[in-house]
């Protein structure tokens, strides 16, 4: 595939990045999707408990984290654009910025977890917290995995391992990172806001 000739109007046969990552992404979407739906139906059986527990969450940190992830995702778009022009160093810098924002996400999330755990909340507290903790921890681990993938891509980019023609790994990493963002975009309103 010669990426350099592709203009935004052309139709690609497969999505950007390695096709295998897309099967992986779809599997992840399915797993999270089942969990989101399970949350909604569990709530339907216990509305008061869910609404009451939801009010104890910190919406601000959830919203800030959404902004952080969206911006980080945008940085990966810039990283892909840079490598398409053959600018390895610029690409690596955008990826570094995206990883840094991932780190901020994790830090904010850790403060939230610390608050909840020090308040004695655990997976067994009630069904809402079971879902809140498992969904956010499950997502948390995906953020870490995404950062690991991006770090590997960044190191190779910094060494000049990609070019304007050959940079599937960058798109693969970006696609996975966008998925992590996409999942949080549903998770945040579902668990923090909607009642």
């Amino acid at each position, binding site marked *: 595939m010669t990426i350099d000739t592709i203009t935004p109007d052309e139709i690609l046969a497969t999505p950007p990045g390695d096709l295998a990552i897309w099967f992986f992404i779809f599997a992840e979407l399915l797993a999270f999707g089942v969990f989101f739906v399970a949350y909604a139906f569990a709530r339907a059986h216990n509305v008061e408990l869910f609404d009451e527990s939801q009010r104890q969450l910190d*919406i601000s940190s959830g919203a800030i984290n959404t902004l952080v992830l969206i911006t980080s995702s945008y940085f990966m778009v810039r990283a892909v654009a840079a490598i398409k022009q053959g600018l390895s160093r610029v690409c690596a810098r955008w990826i570094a910025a995206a990883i840094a924002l991932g780190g901020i996400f994790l830090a904010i999330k850790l403060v939230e977890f610390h608050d909840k755990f020090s308040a004695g909340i655990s997976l067994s507290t009630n069904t809402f917290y079971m879902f809140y903790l498992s969904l956010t921890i499950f997502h948390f681990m995906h953020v870490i995995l995404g950062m690991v993938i991006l770090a590997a891509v960044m190191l190779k980019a910094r060494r000049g391992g990609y070019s304007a023609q050959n940079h599937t790994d960058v798109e693969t990493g970006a696609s996975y990172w966008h998925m992590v963002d996409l999942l949080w*975009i549903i998770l945040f*309103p579902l668990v923090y806001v909607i009642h």
Partner: protein
Amino acid sequence: MDATQRTRFIRPCTYVWLLLMLLTVTTYLIGEAGLGGIAVMLAVLGTAAVKVQLVAGYFMGLRRTRWLWRGIVLGWLLLVTGLITIAYLTAIK
């Protein structure tokens, strides 16, 4: 990719990024105000669905691919948000 192509690649994504930030702030304000009810629920969930489509289409680049790939993500999105809506509506009764 030359400079014009670069602009055509980045500029829509920049607008999308700004739009996503704006929509997130809206959701946040609704949440802080503690609003509830069917209309608010549908609005917030609908906003999330639009955001997902924007990320999938522009950031993930699916708008430049065959319908199959966009269809998988769109189908997943409609299924998940649809079932969530059903669950919330049954809770209201």
